[in-house]
């Protein structure tokens, strides 16, 4: 296991350094950087699996001369699980990148891109393994900065620079709160070691515990993208190259989930007042619902996916929140179930969201646009990409037999179990959250019906789409890997659950694997098999049988009618792409229903012929929705700072000598005062 760890770190480090020595040979740089990342991904998967199976956590550390800092690594099951997730998505993304980055040859330095890619993966892997607060902050910052540089890969575009700047500010605000969290632990224990955080000599007083809870929620929540701190996601994720978006949305935001579980269940010992869990649940529910609602209104495919990340982080947090509430009331098994549902959804979301981003990257590669209104008819031109995208879309819409369904089902079940809680208030609130989750799932389905239908079906809406072709083999392999993972995680939960149970058992204090897996491993049950149960293999089998049966029936009895190929009848008019259902049109009903939330502005300009008002010469339709959070939450803060800066300008004459004089006078005055 130590060897595997060394191999992972060595491959990523080599991948970070080597591309710089191959200047001027982009193809070679591409193969070296992404080949090494592939190798590291494979080793990482093995390391994660070994770490999950190992009875004792693997630890290693190098002490430094800097006070409080030691480069300590601890691979317990929780860390191993995230290493596994990062490596799996990293592997797929690096295979995909082999083909995808050919588009950047000559435009972007492949040495920088490949090197940053490896460095980013390395820093994420270290974040989840770090066992020292100081070291954690260093690699966390490294992760944020490297991803910033990756976001601004195409920095010649103004909107990319804006996105990068926005991301940089948000992530630093988040880091400030994370530092605050660790400082609270530090001033209590006098050490930055996670082990001391875990077992402090004197427990943290309640007030400081609450403070730490809130600081961690804001700090890590910024990275995770909870509402209202989510505003950077729809800027940063689309701006980055697609394989990077897959990593950022698939795994980077998950490191925040890791850190939340680590802080709440590990450092704070899993002892919560009831309202902590309730806050997490509310934040999760609001993020899930608003995330999907804003996603519906997006016509930029990658922004749409970015908003779906907000939604899924919300679902994960609902699982965690339910777990925390159960923990408060001592219902340990249900707490473990909530945590399990959250973590299961974490890996599922990592897999299908990465798949969808890679699919979006393939569309971008083939058509050079992200605007869905310019797609159409791509299924015939890109059948493989279309199929993989469909698998991802089915997963994220939580339909059987894929992985999204299983984990969302588990989240639902843990919310339904709320009738065991003594508090009436919570008894009412948890089912309400379940209702919000139900609404979220339905809207997600609508959103992906739109995303897939508008992009892949019907006729091409632009010349970009008309001339699109299938993407290179390596990109298809990268997507295929994740598509297979989607199905496997969905059909074989009985393999996944015991592994997750190994993580949860030490955190929740109870092992529930044999209770969740019912009927000899064929079904899942929320602890109590009488309450409800779900057999995903049987469901998959049933779906397969029914579809085969349908096809068989058609083959057997439909053969009587002769197949006839002709054009679709368009009431005597030739069909053209202009008659197609647009993405805007598709979501019009939803926009109407939820207009209080969207606050849409619709502008319709028409010019009629003078003779009759029934013939329009020109029509222009504009519609956009109010970015509520930006307008009412962020803009005032920005305005405040700009106003303050404006006042401070008085002393900024722009003269170097004047500034030096300021410093000099201050120094002399201070020296005299010190006398």
């Amino acid at each position: 296991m130590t060897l595997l760890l060394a191999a992972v770190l060595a491959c990523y480090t080599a991948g970070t350094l080597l591309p710089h020595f191959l200047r001027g040979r982009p193809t070679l740089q591409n193969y070296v950087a992404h080949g090494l990342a592939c190798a590291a991904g494979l080793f990482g998967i093995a390391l994660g699996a070994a770490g999950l199976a190992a009875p004792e956590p693997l630890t290693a550390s190098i002490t430094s001369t800097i006070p409080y800092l030691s480069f300590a690594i601890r691979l317990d099951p929780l860390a191993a699980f995230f290493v596994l997730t990062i490596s799996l998505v990293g592997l797929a993304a690096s295979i995909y990148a082999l083909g995808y980055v050919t588009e950047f040859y000559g435009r972007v330095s492949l040495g920088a891109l490949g090197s940053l890619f490896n460095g980013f993966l390395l820093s994420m892997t270290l974040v989840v393994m770090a066992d020292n607060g100081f070291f954690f902050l260093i690699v966390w910052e490294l992760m944020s900065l490297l991803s910033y540089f990756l976001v601004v890969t195409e920095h010649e575009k103004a909107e990319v620079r804006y996105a990068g700047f926005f991301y940089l500010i948000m992530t630093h605000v988040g880091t400030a709160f994370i530092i605050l969290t660790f400082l609270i632990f530090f001033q209590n224990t006098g050490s930055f070691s996670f082990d001391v955080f875990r077992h402090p000599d004197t427990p943290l007083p309640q007030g400081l515990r609450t403070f730490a809870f809130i600081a961690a929620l804001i700090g890590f929540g910024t990275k995770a993208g909870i509402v209202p701190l989510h505003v950077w996601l729809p800027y940063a994720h689309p701006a980055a190259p697609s394989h990077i978006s897959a990593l950022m949305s698939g795994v980077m935001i998950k490191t925040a989930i890791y850190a939340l579980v680590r802080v709440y269940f590990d450092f704070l010992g899993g002892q919560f007042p009831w309202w902590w869990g309730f806050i997490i649940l509310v934040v999760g529910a609001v993020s899930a619902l608003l995330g999907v609602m804003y996603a519906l209104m997006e016509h930029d495919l990658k922004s749409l996916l970015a908003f779906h990340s907000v939604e899924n982080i919300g679902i994960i947090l609902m699982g965690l929140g339910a777990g925390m509430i159960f923990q408060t009331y001592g219902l340990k098994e249900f707490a473990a179930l909530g945590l399990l549902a959250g973590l299961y959804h974490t890996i599922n979301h990592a897999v299908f969201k990465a798949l969808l981003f890679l699919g979006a990257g393939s569309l971008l590669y083939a058509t050079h646009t992200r605007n869905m209104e310019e797609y159409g008819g791509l299924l015939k031109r890109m059948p493989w990409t279309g199929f993989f995208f469909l698998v991802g879309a089915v997963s994220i819409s939580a339909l059987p037999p894929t992985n999204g369904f299983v984990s969302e089902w588990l989240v639902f079940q843990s919310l339904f179990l709320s009738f065991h809680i003594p508090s009436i208030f919570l008894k009412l609130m948890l089912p309400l959250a379940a209702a919000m989750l139900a609404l979220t799932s339905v809207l997600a389905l609508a959103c992906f019906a739109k995303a897939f239908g508008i992009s892949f079906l019907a006729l091409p809406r632009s010349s970009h789409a008309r001339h699109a072709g299938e993407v290179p083999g390596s990109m298809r392999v990268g997507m295929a890997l994740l598509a297979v993972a989607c199905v496997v995680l969905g059909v074989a939960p009985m393999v996944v659950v015991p592994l997750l149970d190994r993580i949860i058992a030490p955190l929740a204090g109870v092992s529930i694997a044999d209770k969740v897996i019912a009927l000899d491993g064929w079904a899942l049950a929320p602890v109590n098999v009488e309450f409800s149960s779900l057999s995903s293999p049987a469901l998959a089998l049933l779906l397969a049988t029914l579809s085969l049966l349908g096809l068989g029936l058609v083959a057997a009895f439909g053969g009587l009618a002769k197949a006839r190929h002709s054009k679709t009848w368009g009431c005597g008019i030739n069909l053209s792409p202009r008659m197609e259902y647009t993405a805007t049109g598709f979501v019009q009903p939803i926009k109407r229903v939820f207009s209080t939330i969207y606050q849409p502005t619709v502008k319709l300009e028409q010019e009629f012929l003078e003779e009759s008002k029934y013939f329009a010469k020109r029509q222009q339709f504009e519609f956009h929705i109010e970015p509520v959070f930006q307008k009412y939450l962020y803009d005032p803060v920005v305005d405040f700072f700009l106003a303050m800066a404006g006042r401070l300008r008085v002393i900024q004459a722009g003269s170097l000598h004047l500034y030096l004089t300021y410093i000099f006078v201050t120094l002399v005055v201070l020296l005299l005062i010190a006398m």
Partner: protein
Amino acid sequence: MSLLSQQLGSQMVNLGSALLLLTCFAIVAQRRLTACVDMFAVQSVLLAATAALVAFLTGIHHIYIAAALTVVIKAVLIPRILKQVVERLNVTRELVMNVNIPASLLICGGLVMLAFFITQPIIPLGFLLTRDSLAISLAIILIGFFTMIARKKAVTQVIGFLVMENGLFLGATSAAYGMPLIVEIGVFFDVLVGALIIGIYTHRLQDAFDSVDTTKLTTLKE
């Protein structure tokens, strides 16, 4: 070591420090840029000699390394970089000043007095044989700073900055027999990089304004 040689050593260190201070005044009194750079090189050599003397008297060996680095970086490398900048940019040789030379010298004299005044209560607390140099090192720092304010050209500001650095080095050597070697090396690296960056900055300044007069930077303000 006998008491006599102890006292002699202490006197020697004080002499070195006083010479350092003298070179500061020389720098302030110079009219030509290249002479300024030369004076700085001389100051650095004197500093290295003083540091080597301290190393010899105390038997702390790593000060020798710091002294050697001082000679290599501050007496050879940085003056060469600065002279290159002066030559390549064809900077007019005359200095441009905010404060003229007699007034500058008077102010510097005042700063020396201030430094001695401030360090007066601290020095008797020390027990090192180099303790008297503390006042001089503070004086050098203040004069370096003053040079940065009083002279307009970017190159003279680099020199002011480096003089301050020399003062700090002398202070560290006299007050605590030098900093840990790793810190010392870090500081040398910083200074070298700083000189390089300011060299480049001077180039850009020349490109943008056809002059290395930093007062022109005020036009950057809207």
